Each structure stands twice: as C-alpha cells, then as structure tokens.
C-alpha cells in the first residue's frame, strides 16, 4: 500500500506542556491532509537549533481530517525537542509525512495496547482506529511517576485504560510487565501492540511469545532521511536488514531477531 508522502509547512495551533518533560503539539495544514494510519510518523524540521542538523522523527499521535490538524506527543530529550518545546502558536514547522508502515489491521477478539513513557504516542491514534473498527482494546500505559501520567481521558474514550507507574504513585507499581494483565490466566489476547523503550518492548514481546500471542512493536532508530534512501535505520529481520522508516517502524516481533534463532 502506497501512502502519498508530502512536505508541508504546518502552522502551530497549540503547544501544550503536559509536565516537565512532555508536550503536545497541534499542527494545522492549509489543505486537506493525506490519509494516514496509526504507527506512521512524520519528520519535523527544527530550525533555530544550532545543534539540530537533521529532521526529527515523531509518531502521529492523532489526526483530525475535518480540522486538518495533526497531533504529536513529544518528550524533551536533547536540543531538537527542547527547541520544539518552546515553539509558539502561529509559528511554522516544515513536516514530511506520513512516513513508514502502520500497525496491521485488527483481528477480531481481545487486543491489548501497551505503552511506556513517550511510547504511548502512536497508541492513541491506534486505539481510536481500533474503535472505529469495533474493537474496544485494553490499554496499559506505564509512566515514571504520577506527575507524568497524562491523557488518560483520551484513551478512556476508546478502551479500558490501566495505569502503572515505576514508583506506584498512580495505578499499580512497577514496570508494565509487572501489571496484573500479564498474569497468565488473564493473557487471553489475540494481539498485543506495544510501543516504548526497547527493553520494555522486548520484555512484552517475550511474554507474548511465551503465551503464543501475536505481538507488534514500533521500533525507534536513529534516522537521517526517514523516507528510505539513506539506509541508516536498518534492523535485522527474517528478510535481512530492513529499513525501520519504510518496512517499519511497526514490526511483528516474530520477524525480528529478538529471541535468537
């Protein structure tokens, strides 16, 4: 399936700070947005940041085709994201999108979405999409601490949300894999979608595999282009080195070499 990629100057509609490290950007396009699917991402050009030479990739957090807006949930990591965090309404960002593949179309049956930290970004769009396809997912989101727990109401519109925090200040305490949903008797999902730090995704994928559940993850990677030409972002799969920005970022964990051979 080919998605028409575009380069657009988008106008900042709002930049809302969620907490110390996270903010949500709403960007508006002058013309109708191209079709996009959950799991796809965009490459944002960060001007005015002397230490940011390349674009920065961010998952599409949500889309509104009526208002022509596209939303990003961003964690401040280095100069590029710090700079984006200070952008003001009406400023312009140059964005290439939609890029990459998407989470695969839902099977029937129960599904679980697992997100950790900023890895929750693509899951809101995915939850909404599943909902439109008459699936009401379970959604487990992990955060470091209560202060960083956010957007729970948004997820709640599309599924049963459960929260876990590293320090137990909200919801259960521990890592996502410590959560009761991962107790054997409850693991009756047809599919798990997961996005977050690599260690977390590997742990979730390991449990899924052990219980014979299909699992899709969205990989991070250092990207130069984001649209398939530089070959910098490869990951080893059953088909050799594949590009995370084109053949991914979403991979079925059976195709990755995470479990040895």
């Amino acid at each position: 399936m080919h998605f028409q990629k575009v380069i657009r100057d988008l106008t900042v509609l709002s930049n809302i700070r969620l907490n110390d490290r996270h903010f949500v950007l709403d960007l508006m396009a002058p013309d109708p947005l191209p079709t996009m699917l959950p799991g796809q991402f965009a490459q944002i050009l960060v001007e005015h940041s002397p230490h940011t030479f390349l674009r920065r990739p961010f998952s599409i957090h949500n889309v509104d085709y009526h208002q022509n807006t596209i939303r990003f949930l961003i964690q401040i990591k280095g100069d590029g994201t710090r700079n984006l965090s200070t952008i003001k309404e009406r400023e312009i960002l140059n964005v290439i999108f939609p890029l990459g593949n998407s989470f695969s179309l839902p099977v029937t049956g129960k599904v679980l979405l697992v997100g950790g930290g900023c890895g929750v970004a693509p899951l809101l769009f995915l939850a909404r999409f599943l909902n439109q396809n008459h699936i009401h997912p379970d959604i487990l989101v992990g955060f470091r601490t209560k202060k960083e727990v956010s957007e729970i109401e948004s997820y709640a519109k599309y599924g049963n949300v459960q929260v876990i925090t590293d320090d137990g200040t909200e919801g259960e305490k521990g890592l996502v894999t410590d959560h009761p949903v991962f107790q054997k008797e409850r693991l009756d999902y047809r599919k798990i979608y997961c996005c977050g730090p690599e260690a977390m995704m590997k742990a979730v994928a390991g449990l899924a595999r052990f219980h014979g559940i299909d699992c899709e993850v969205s990989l991070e990677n250092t990207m130069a282009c984001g649209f398939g030409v530089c070959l910098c972002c490869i990951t080893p799969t059953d088909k050799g080195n594949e590009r995370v920005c084109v053949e991914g970022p979403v991979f079925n964990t059976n195709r990755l070499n995470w479990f040895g051979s």
Partner: protein
Amino acid sequence: MTDLSIDIAGLRFKNPVTTASGTFGYGEEFLDFMDVGQLGGIFVKAVTGKNRDGNPYPRMAETPSGMLNSVGLQNKGVTHFCREIYPRIKNFRTHLIVNVSGSTVEEYVEVAARINELEAIPAIELNISCPNVKLGGMAFGTVPAMATEVTAAVRKVYGKVLMVKLSPNVTSITDLAKAVVDGGADAITLINTLLGMAIDVNRRRPVLSTITGGLSGPAIKPVALRMVWQVHKAVHVPLIGLGGIMNATDTIEFLLAGASAVQVGTANFIDPTVSLKIISGIDDYMQKNNFKSVSELVGALNTD
C-alpha cells in the same frame, strides 16, 4: 532565459545539479516529492558484484553541521540491479549514472562490464574509497598506483563515460586526480566522505557499530571546495563537485572553484526537493549577474 546545460566528457546535462550516490536511493523514493526528470542527473547508490548486507546498526551519528554514516555499501548486487531496478527507473528523463564499488579490481571490472550493457546508463562513477581486500584493506583511493590500476582495468571494459570519485582522506588529492586521469578517467567526482568518529560519553562507546564512519554535510564543504580548486588547477578533465551543498550559493561556490557540475548529498535528507530549488537559484544568480551560460561560471574564480 539562461542556459543551464553543461557538457561533461561529451555528455550533455540539462543542468549542473545532480544527486549524490547513497543519498537518493534509485530516485524512486523521491517521486512523491518532485519530478526527477528536472534534475541534471541521478547518481544511483553503490552497486557491487554480489549482495551486501552492509554494516550492523547503528549506522548513523549526527555531528555539528553534518553526519557520520557507516552504511557499508548495502545493496543486492549487480544482477539484481540489472534485472529488478534498472527496468523500473530506466525511463526517468534524466541521466542515470551508476556508482560502481568493489573490494577487488576484478569486482569493479565485473560490475562495470555488466552496467556497460544497460542502454539507459550513459556513465558510471567508480567509487574508489572502498578498502582493497587483497591489499590489506588500504583503500584504492589512497594510493595513486592502485587508483591508476583499477581505473585502467575498468576503462578496458567500459566504453561510455567513466567518472572516478575520489576520497578526501589523502595527503595530496592532486596526486590521486592525476593517477585516475592516467588510468583513463573521463571526469572526476570529488569528494567522498571524510573519515570521522563519534563517541557516546554516557555509554562510553563509539556511536557507530563500525567505530569510524564517513562524515558528510556542510561541515566538510570548506575541505571539498579546496580539493575541487586544487584539482581544477592540476588536471584537465571535467570535475563534479560535492560535499555539504545545501543551497544555490554553495553550488555556485563549487562551480567557481572549477566543478562543471555538482552533486547534492546529505541535503536531500533534510529537504528532498532541495535540488530543484538549487536549479532555480542558479538561474536567479546568473540573471542577476548577467551570465548567459552556466559554463561561464566554471572555474571563474578570480584569484589575483
């Protein structure tokens, strides 16, 4: 209207703006963004004798005004190129030039001979920055005698325009340029990436899986311009200049230094349509400064 067309070793380019090998794929990924037929040419990514997986991840590090890569010539080999890729791209209305790589003289010769048969490919660019596996890993492009040898061997089997792309990691770029002209090169491309390294202080590890990698982007432009200018004074074949070109001004600098055409590399990642902007920027500059033909700019640097 200005005349942007330029002749390189008998081959007419509609304008001097082409795209660099390894930064433009086979051109297909750019079709969503632009009409590639407006480019002077496309240097497609490196083709080797056999399939190569390239280097392990991570392959990229961002650096001040540049980036390091250690992709390592990942490609599916010349047979796959001829059978699968070539038919898909051969009708792009621009010069398609294949970047030919190898680890032995024989591999270069084999690939060049196969590409020689492809009608829609009017030229090849020998990438002699690769380490020579038979000669202890020293790159072909760092020892003049080796550079002459591989160029001459390919010259024997390749009948169309033969370009050779030089590595900047040498004491004397002019010695290398003369060496490939001696071997029969029709034109010289310069420069490939500078060898560099990046370190992650938190992990206390190199960022790249290969420890060192190739530096590209604006950071290297001063070195690239210097080499184009030195080689322009030293040899009499046309030059194709690159290294850090981001806009029309950068491009005109390379033309003035002596390049007949340029390649846009890393800039494609940041703005996939940058080459078209450069083409119109050159036209603006020429109109403003009363140049009729872009060839008037080539080597027009005033140094007295």
